[in-house]
Structure formats: C-alpha cells, structure tokens
C-alpha cells in the first residue's frame, strides 16, 4: 500500500463523505418538517456541493459557493423565517399521497436524467486547455461575458428594487 494509493483512498473517502454530506443535507432540506432544519440541511448540502467543486478543481467557485450561498442566501432565508415568525412552529401533518406522487414524479425525472447521463457517449473536446485560474475567469467576465456581467448587475438592481417595493409596500398597505 503505497502512499499514492493510500492518498487516493483517502481522497476517495473524502469524496464520498462530501457526497454523503450533500445528500444528507439535501434530504434534510427537503424532508425535515421543521423549516429551520430545512435551512440547516440546505446549508449542509450547499457546503457539500462546495466540497464537490473542490474535487472538480475549482477552489474559487467553492469559496464563492460558501460565501454567496451558505453565507448570503441561507442567512436571508433565516431572516425571512424570522419575519414570518410563528411559521417555524407550524408542522402540519404530512399528506402521504402527495409525497408519494411527488417522489414518483421526481423518480421518473431522476431516472430520465440518470439514463441520459449513462447512455450518452460523452466526448471531450479535442483541444482542452487546463487554465482554471481566477484571472482567466475575471478576464472572461470582462470580455466574452461582458454582457452577462452587466445584465447580472441589472438583475441585482431589479431584485433590490423589487424586494423593496414588494415587501415594503405590502407592509405599509396591510398595516
């Protein structure tokens, strides 16, 4: 058992553990009945995905994932839960038929997606660069994806204004 193979084994173990986290988190996020657990599950799953990104060779994206998703989005959701305070106490009983149908439909979908993934003969590009660097990402954003970059800023602007008018006005009007 040389080091490389043990390293590989370690890496493999780490990989599966990450996957495990992701899946567990996802399950908690979806199936737990307390909304706060859901958020925590989501955070767990997102962290797991960040881990997977690491395995995919992109540290930067993994970090951004932690920052934006786990940091920003989850917190925002928690805030929202707090604003609609009594709700996290509400745990209505589960309607089994609905769950079964939902699971069945999703299973069909999953089978489809998995089938596509497995049945397709994925062909890598003939010439592949190995440039994963942040610099290139930045460069890309300012050249090829310039428009995308600009538009995302507009999206955020819209989101901000939208959040204000939607949440804000309705408060004023309802009070």
């Amino acid at each position, binding site marked *: 058992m040389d080091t490389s193979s043990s390293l590989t084994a370690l890496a493999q173990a780490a990989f599966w553990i990450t996957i495990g986290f992701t899946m567990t988190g996802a399950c908690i996020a979806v199936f737990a009945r307390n909304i706060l657990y859901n958020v925590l599950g989501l955070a767990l799953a997102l962290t797991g995905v960040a881990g997977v990104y690491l395995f995919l060779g992109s540290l930067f994206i993994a970090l951004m994932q932690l920052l934006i998703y786990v940091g920003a989005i989850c917190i925002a959701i928690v805030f929202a839960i707090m604003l609609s305070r009594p709700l996290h106490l509400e745990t209505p009983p589960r309607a089994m038929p609905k769950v079964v149908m939902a699971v069945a439909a999703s299973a069909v979908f999953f089978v*489809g*997606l998995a*089938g*596509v993934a497995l*049945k*397709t*003969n*994925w*062909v*890598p*590009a003939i010439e592949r660069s190995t440039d994963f660097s942040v610099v290139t990402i930045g460069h890309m954003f300012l*050249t*090829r*994806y*310039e*428009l*995308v970059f600009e*538009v*995302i800023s*507009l*999206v955020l*602007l*819209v*989101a901000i*204004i*939208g959040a204000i*008018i*939607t949440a804000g*006005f*309705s408060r004023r*009007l309802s009070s």
Partner: protein
Amino acid sequence: MMNDFILFLPEFYFTIAALIYFGLSLKKTSEPWALQKWALTLAGIGLIVTVAASRQHGMLFFDCYRVDLFSQVFKVLLAMGTFWVIFSSSELKGIDGRQHAEYYFLMFICTLAMMMLVSSVELLTIYVAIELSSYSLYLMVPMRRNADEFSETGVKYFMIGVTASAMMLFGISLLFGATNTTYVSQIVVKLPALLGQPVAIVGLVLSLAGFFFKLAVFPFHIWAPDVYQGSANQVTAYIATASKMAAAALIIRFTGFSMGASPALANFLVVLCVLSMTFGNLVALIQKDIKRLLAYSSIAHAGYMLMGILALGERGYAAAIYYAMAYLVMNYACFMVIMKIADDGHNLQIKELAGLHKRSPLLAMTLMMGLFGLAGIPPTAGFTGKFLVFAAAVEKGYLWLAIVGMINATISLYYYLIVIKAAYLLKPVEEFPAIRVDGMTRAMSLVLVGLMVYLGLFFNQFMDLTEAAAKSLF
C-alpha cells in the same frame, strides 16, 4: 465602434429609459399621468429607434450577440407591444399610484431583457436575459393592489417560473455537455450529429421548458390563467403580448438547433401542440372572466404557434413569426378594449360587456375584430396566421394536425362568440354610462382594426419579411 453602437441602439435606448424611471422612482411623489405621458413618449421614441435599427445586422460582444433581421423583427414587435401597453396605462388603476414609476421601470427593463434575449446567441447570455425578464415580471405581477383574492398569484407565478427555469438551466447544461460550447452558432453545427444520442433531445426539450413556460404551452401553462386573472390589467396585457414574442423567438431559435432533422423532437412538439390547442380551447369554454378566458386562449394560440414551429423549416418559422406578429396585434386589440372598459382596474367579467355596442360602438367593433382574429376568421390577420402555420405543417405531412387545428379553431369560436354576443346582444342589467373614448384611443382602435385587416389580406410583403427573417436565423 459607432457602427456597433447603432447595432445596440434599441437596447441601449431602453436601458436609458429604464434608468430614467429608476431615477423617477426615487422621487417621493410624482403624478401618475405625467409618468404615463413621459413613458409613452419614451416608448414611442423607442419604437421609432427600434424600427430605425431594424435593417441592421452584425455581431457584438465577442459574438455573443447577433443583430439580424430575425432579432430586429422581434425587437420591433417587442417595442410595439411595450408602446401599446404603456399607451393603455393611462388607466393604471390596478397599481398603487406610488408604484407607477417602478412599474414603468420594470417594464422597460423587461423589454430590454427580451430584446437582448432575441439577439443573444450564447447560452449563458440567453439564460441571464430570460431571468432578467422573468424577474421583472415576477415583480410586476404582485404589484396589484386591493385585490386580496388574487394575492396568491405572484407566488404561484414565481414558483412555477423558477422551477421551469431550473429545468431550462439543466437542459442548457446538458447541451453544453453535449457540444462543449455555449455558442449557438457552434451548437447548430455540432448538434445535428449528436441527434442519435439521448442527450441532445433531452437537453433541447428541457431547455425549451423555460420558453414553453413563457409562451404558456401545455403543460407549462399552469401559471397563465391565474396570472392573467390576478395581475393588473396592463400587466396582463404586457405578459400576454410582448413577453410571448420573445418566447416564440427563442423557441424558434432552439428548435432550429436540430436543423429539422429530428423526428423525436418533432413528435414531442406535435404532442405539445395538440395538447395545448385542445386543452386551452376546451377549458376556455367554461370561463366567465375575460382575462382568464384569454389566458386559456393564449394557451391554445401557443399550440398554433408550435404548429408552425414543428415543421422545423424555414416556411414554418416564417409562419410562426407571422403568427406571433398577428397574435400581438389581435391580442392587444382585445386587451385595449378590456382595459378601456374596466377603467377602474377591476377584472372584467363577460357579462359586464353587455350593451357595449351602445356604450361605445368603436370599442365593440375593435373587440369583435380582435376576437374574430383570434378565432381565425378571415379577413383578419389571425386567419392568415393560421393559414400559414397550417400550410407549413401540411407541407411537412401533418395533414391531420391541420384538421385538428381547424377543429380546435371551431371550438374556440364558441367562446369568442360568447364574448361577442355579450358585447352586441345582451341587454345590460343596469344601464352603464357611455364610455368616453378619447381621440387617441379612437385613432388606436382604427389603427388596430386596419392593421388586422391589412395584415390579413395584404401579407405579401410581410411574408417576404418573415421569410427573410427566418432565413437569417441560420
């Protein structure tokens, strides 16, 4: 550089317009009518600008953005739809006066987003643009005030929208995986070779989901009735007219990936087409609320548009473009009348139309022509549109589909006739006062009626235009 600027002029113009209204929204108080006048002026100029730029073609943003006849035709349609909706916003009672500036802001943004959408030839750009347009619509829908019974609309629209867009995103990722590129021009080259593999079709189908959602094709239509009913009349009009244009354009673009060589995709589209037409028309039969009725009719019309598209050929695309054009005019004509009648912003019921021909003969006629157009009765544009899509479908051997389409058109006639009957025949329970129709609206009514007939009969040059546009697609 200057040349590039001209290419991007409409989008640029609408960005400026949106920013102006962003600024205005920061003001504490502003007169709604003044906002409307300015917005109308801006939109009018925007329309002129778009028309002026309509013969441009070129590439922008490192080939992410393509300006050609196809995109420019749709941009003109979008600008026109926006102009018309703003024209009808003089009675914007469905939205609180304090939010009017935001309303115009979002509308300009949405138009801008859709303009970018029709021009984008890169998957990420397309995705971002469609999200931008969707988000502005998500926000416009719940703006409606004093309508607690419709409060769930916004959230429903949002939830369905994000689900559909997640599917689309997944589909796009599959396309990316299959072709290793995000450029449409390269996908078009590579994808036909991959059609034997499931990924290509699944990727296409999933990415079409987002556009089907926008166009309200069965089974992605579920938001349509609720949103049409639940949002302010003007917002509904906007969703029903302008936003459909962009969706149609993108469906045409994406189905074009297969270069007409995919029976599986065609079969899928055929099924959706038949389901959409049948479902929309059948359920519309029992509606009482006009906007909800028009929502179902829009589902059916999405089916007709698909019939042109599923021919997966130039003639079919040209027919679909023509259909979209005609649909814009007819649908807006109906909505204009509805907005004019329900000038306090409430939801119009069919029975409220009773006695319309006395209250305002002109509006009644406009409504009748619009509805006949939607029903596909000559000599309106609706008929010619149907004729062209059927022609495209039959040319590909779908004779039975054309028959199904015509039977559906007959079914649809029933509910359109019910509305017309209400307008021309029913005696109102209580006498409503005559509707005051200002000169602008009169002129607009005549223009719309004239346009519907003109498009319906003198469509030679429009045919040339749409065929050229469809050709520029590839």
